[in-house]
Structure formats: structure tokens, C-alpha cells
């Protein structure tokens, strides 16, 4: 699922960035706070040096310069000068318990560590060794020893450490991300299913259980709404089917008796003519009723379509031939033009015949003074669709009226009122085309004839 992969990619990228950022911030903090704290105030070694330089011999006395004394006071430190023979020859605020004589071993010992737990620092003096001691537990003394090669490798080691960190961050974020994705994936597929109007049931557990429950709820709501819509469409379609059915029986009688009167020799000629009008109008009503039923079923997708591969040219030839065989008036000429025989569509033959016949019939009905009708089957420019084009050179129709023609009569989408005919013919053709995953395209202008183009996906 590309959605999940994208999320994982983004998530990992963001995590790595965050990790690197944290690393850098830490370095800076370490650098500024920690090392600054080490050098805070007066470093002991500096104090020791100041004391050593400020200690002058004055005969047998030693005097400490005031500013060095000040340093010592500020640090609460004590100081002493050990002569080369190990005796303390000068001291300042030295704790009492400290000895006044030191052996070489003792000096070596405390110069590196502590003198009776006092952290002490030493500096060379012309008369011996200056020792400065800080209060107990005030300083930690550490000594580090590194091989030179280690020190010279340090930049590489730091670089390796940085990359190692980045790699670890990447792996960790990938791991956490993939766990997240595993939790999210059912949600994503659930949402995809929702958008495709399919029923979905996401398992509600883990941190996304709330979202999962929402998705499940939305899904069941959608299903309910669909079921309701379907039930309503079915009711509507059944209602129309019922009405069509109920009209058929009385219409049988109207047609039956009217045609009987029309053919009866005992009825005067004038009355026969009236009966003929009744019969003709009855026949119109009959075609209206059957169109109405078909249109309503197509509108609500109730018409079962029995598709099979159909060669469009065969169909067109049959329809044109039927018109010619069934006494087409002499004012009309009809011509077939087959661009290719290799033009198959998956379709319901009866419905397609009805649609094409309807279009030809339309040209005839709207041009009572006659016209030339041209029926053409062809492939579309991109070779993916089958086209059936019916053109007449009749009086045509105003361009602005065209979109109306495929809308159902009396529907809110129709801008102009119905002019002639029952207006179900073209909407029916458009719906038959749609039921075959195709469409109907009308082009016309006043005085320029009418072109109706049926476009269907080709069957392989």
C-alpha cells in the first residue's frame, strides 16, 4: 500500500532529523554548560600559581601579596610552602591536624591525589614547593592518561560515533515506524474501503481503537444509507412498473375497440377516421408506457443487462435494413457507412437495437418534410471506443436546447419546457448508453441537422 510506505518514509525521515537535532543540541549544551562549570570562578591551578608568584622572601619571613591572599580567602583555601628538606617553612590558614614535615613519598602521593582528604595543588617556588589546599569535599581530582595514537584518532572516532548515532536513530525510527504502520494499516484499508463504498470492519484494538470504531460506525452508516436508497429506488421503480402495468389493461380495450371500429364496414367513414385517431393515440400511449418502464428501470439501475459481444456493424446493418424494409417514406433516404467490421462492444442486443432505432426514429419524427440519414460505425481516434454516429441533414435544433434533451422530462435539470413528443426517447438512449459504460453526444444547430454519437468501450 503506497499510502503506508509514504507515511513510513516521512515518519522515518522526521525521526532521523529529530535525533540529529537532539545530538547537536546536546553537544552544544555539554560544551557550554559542563565545561564552563569546570572553569567557573578561579581554577585551583591558577590560584596556586598566583600564590606561588605572590609569595616573597623577606629575610626569614615570607609575605604574601594581598591579591593572592584575597584569592585564597575567596576559595576558602589554605596554603603552605614546603622547603626542599621537607619542612613547612611558611603557611597560611593551614588546618592544625596537618603535619609540618613531609617525606618525598608523601609529597609525590599528595601532589597527585589528596592530602588527608584535602584536594591540594602544587606549584614550583624558588624556595621549595607551594601547596594550596581546598576545603574537604569541595573538588574532585582526576587524572587522565591517553595514548597519543588514541588522541590522534579522536576526530575519526567522533565522526564514527556521529554516524553510528545516525544509523541507530534510523534503525530505531524504522522499527517504531513499522510498528506504527502495522497498527495504522487496517485503518488505512478501512478508509479506502469506505471511499469505495464497500462494507468494512476494522478490528478495534490498540492505540487506534477509537478511530477503528469510528470507521466501523461510518461504514455501517453508509451501508444503511445505501440500503435505504436502494429500497427507495426499488419502490419508485416498482411503483412506475405497477402503473405501467395497470395502464396496459384499459389500454388494451381502447386499442381493441378503436381498431375494431376503424375496420368495421358498418361504421360511417367519418367515425372510422375518429376511431383511427383514437387507435393511433392509443399506440403512442402504449409506446410511452413501455418507454417509461424501461427508463425508470435504467434510471434506478434495475434493468438486468444481459451482455454478450456484439459486432456494431452487424447491428447497424440490421437496423438500417429494417427501416428500409418497413416502408420508409420516400422523402427519407438512409445510408450506412461502416469504417471497420472489427468493432465489438459488450452489450445487451435488445437495448442497443432500441437505442439506435430510437435515434433514427428521432431524425424521422423531427423532420416531417424528409431528410437524409447517415448511419456510421467507426473506431474513436484513440482506438479505444466504438462509435455509432447518426447524422441527419434536417432542421436541427438550437444548440442551447441540446443538454435538455437527455434529461428526463419534468426533471429539475431541464431548463426549457417540453415541446413535442413525450420526451423519453433521448433520455432513454442516454441511459442505455450509460448502462453500457458509454455515452451519448448530441451536436446540432438550427438548420444544420442533428448528429447523435453513441460511444461505447470496445470489447477485447
Amino acid at each position, binding site marked *: 500500500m503506497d499510502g503506508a510506505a509514504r507515511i513510513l518514509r516521512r515518519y522515518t525521515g522526521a525521526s532521523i532529523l529529530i535525533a540529529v537535532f537532539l545530538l547537536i543540541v546536546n553537544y552544544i549544551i555539554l560544551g557550554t554548560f559542563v565545561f564552563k562549570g569546570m572553569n567557573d570562578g578561579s581554577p585551583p591551578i591558577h590560584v596556586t600559581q598566583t600564590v606561588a608568584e605572590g609569595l616573597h622572601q623577606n629575610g626569614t619571613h615570607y609575605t604574601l601579596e594581598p591579591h593572592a591572599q584575597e584569592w585564597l580567602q575567596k576559595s576558602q583555601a589554605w596554603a603552605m610552602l614546603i622547603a626542599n628538606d621537607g619542612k613547612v617553612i611558611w603557611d597560611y590558614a593551614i588546618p592544625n591536624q596537618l603535619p609540618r614535615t613531609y617525606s618525598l613519598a608523601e609529597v609525590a602521593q599528595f601532589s597527585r591525589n589528596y592530602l588527608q582528604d584535602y584536594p591540594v595543588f602544587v606549584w614550583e617556588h624558588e624556595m621549595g614547593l607551594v601547596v594550596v589546599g581546598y576545603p574537604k569535599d569541595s573538588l574532585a581530582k582526576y587524572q587522565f592518561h591517553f595514548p597519543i595514537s588514541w588522541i590522534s584518532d579522536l576526530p575519526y572516532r567522533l565522526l564514527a560515533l556521529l554516524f553510528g548515532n545516525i544509523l541507530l536513530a534510523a534503525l530505531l525510527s524504522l522499527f517504531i515506524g513499522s510498528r506504527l504502520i502495522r497498527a495504522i494499516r487496517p485503518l488505512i484499508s478501512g478508509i479506502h474501503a469506505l471511499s469505495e463504498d464497500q462494507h468494512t470492519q476494522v478490528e478495534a484494538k490498540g492505540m487506534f481503537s477509537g478511530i477503528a470504531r469510528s470507521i466501523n460506525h461510518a461504514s455501517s452508516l453508509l451501508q444503511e444509507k445505501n440500503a435505504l436508497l436502494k429500497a427507495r429506488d426499488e419502490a419508485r421503480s416498482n411503483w412506475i412498473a405497477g402503473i405501467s*402495468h395497470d395502464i396496459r389493461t384499459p389500454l388494451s380495450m381502447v386499442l381493441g375497440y378503436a381498431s375494431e371500429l376503424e375496420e368495421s364496414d358498418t361504421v360511417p367513414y367519418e367515425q372510422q377516421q375518429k376511431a383511427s385517431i383514437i387507435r393511433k393515440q392509443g399506440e403512442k400511449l*402504449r409506446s410511452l408506457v413501455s418507454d417509461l418502464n424501461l427508463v425508470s428501470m435504467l434510471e434506478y439501475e434495475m434493468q438486468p443487462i444481459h451482455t454478450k459481444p456484439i*459486432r456494431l456493424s452487424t447491428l447497424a*446493418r*440490421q437496423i438500417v*435494413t429494417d427501416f428500409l424494409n418497413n416502408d420508409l417514406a420516400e422523402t427519407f433516404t438512409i445510408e*450506412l457507412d*461502416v469504417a471497420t467490421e472489427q468493432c465489438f462492444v459488450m452489450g445487451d442486443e*435488445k437495448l442497443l437495437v432500441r437505442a439506435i432505432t430510437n435515434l433514427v426514429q428521432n431524425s424521422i419524427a423531427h423532420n416531417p418534410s424528409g431528410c437524409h440519414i447517415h448511419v456510421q460505425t467507426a473506431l474513436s481516434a484513440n482506438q479505444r471506443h466504438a462509435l455509432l454516429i447518426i447524422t441527419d441533414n434536417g432542421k436541427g435544433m438550437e444548440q442551447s436546447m441540446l443538454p435538455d434533451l437527455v434529461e428526463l422530462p419534468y426533471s429539475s435539470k431541464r431548463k426549457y419546457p417540453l415541446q413535442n413528443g413525450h420526451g423519453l426517447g433521448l433520455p432513454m438512449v442516454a441511459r442505455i448508453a450509460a448502462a453500457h459504460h458509454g455515452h451519448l453526444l448530441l451536436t446540432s444547430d438550427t438548420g444544420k441537422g442533428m448528429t447523435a454519437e453513441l460511444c461505447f468501450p470496445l470489447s477485447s
Partner: protein
Amino acid sequence: MEEWKQKKVLIVEDELEIRNMIDGFLRKEGFARIFHAGTCKEALAVCASDKPDVAILDVMLPDGDGFGLLTSIRRFSQIPVIFLSARGEDEDRLLGLGLGADDYIVKPFLPRELVLRLLVILRRVYAPPQIDRLPVFQLGDSTIDLEAASVTRDQHEYALTAKEHALLRKLYENRGRIVTSDALCQSVWGDDYYGYENTLMVHMRRIREKIEPCPSTPEYLLTVRGLGYKLLVKEEL
């Protein structure tokens, strides 16, 4: 023709007015022995007592439907049946015909149509057995005998090949009307006819050589450009 009208007709229809209307048409056409029934029960009773020769059944009846009624009738009788129904959906028609009905007419209907279909069925079911003979007809100076598969012209007899015979027969059945090349090919080569259009033209030329006085300007077997062929028959024997 008149002998068919002596047959007994049963009309099963719950609407009295429609029943009377059909009755009226049939009587006007010369049928005299007509029985009525308004329900399945009555219909079965009439079938048992009066043994009608043909039945016209409505589909929707107060105590059941015509499909069930037909099934019941078929248990003891093989009489021809026409459904006459306001239900015209494909499924209903297929169901009716699938149950063994001889025809299915959807209301509203023209009475003339009902009578013609009724007569066709009666003729087919009750006609005395006769040998089916293919027609013999005249095209100008040629006599075409489809039974013998031969054409006689100027004291010459030309034999028709099987394909030529099948084509001429199809054309003769639709004489005066255009037959599409698809329909012609299908009648000769069956459903896998595609690709035989050129062969069809060759066969048509051979037929013309046999039946036309001047094959290059045909008078009887005409080509309708882009659609198919048409056989013009002026006189029949």
C-alpha cells in the same frame, strides 16, 4: 382456413370486459365455440369438461398465476397455449415460453394480432400432416425449383450447389426485402460466419450467372450497397 375456426377456444381472463372484448373479436372472425374462465379453478374445470383445443391465458389471476395454471394443464393435456399478459418483462416472457407456451402477447395488443397469432398456432398444431415441399418460383424466364435445387432457363438446367441453395432459400423467404449480408452468411456458415463476406460475393455472382439473363446488370438479385441483397420475385407459380 375456416376449419380452424371450428376449434374450441378457452379464454382465461379475470377482467370481464377484456374477456368480452376478446370473445367479440373471435366471434367476429368466425370462431363460434368459445369458453370463458375467470379463475384458475374455473379454467381447470372447463379444461376437464369441454376439452378446448387452444387456450388464451392471462398471467395474473385472482387465485394464482397463469404460469402455475399452465403447469397444471400440462399434467393432463398438451393443448397449445397463448399467454396474454400485462407483464411484459423479459423474465416473464422467458418464463412463460419456457413453460411450454406457444406464444406470449403483451398487453395492450391489437385484436388483429391476437387473431393472426391464434390462427398460426392452430394451423401449425392441427394441420393434417403433409410433406414439406420447398417452393418452385419463376424469375423472368428462369424457373427455380428449390426442392430439386435446380434452375431451368432456355431449356438448360443448372444445378444449385448446397450453399447457393441455402442462400436462395433465405432470400426467397424474405423476397422483396433486403437481407443483410450478416444474415445470409449466418444462414450458410452458422454463427462463426465472420470473414466469409468475400466468399458470399463469389457465391452471389455464381447464383446470378445461373438465374440472371445478364449477370452484370442483375434484374432479380439486387445488391443493396453496404447492407446486403434483395431478391425481387415478380411472379409465383
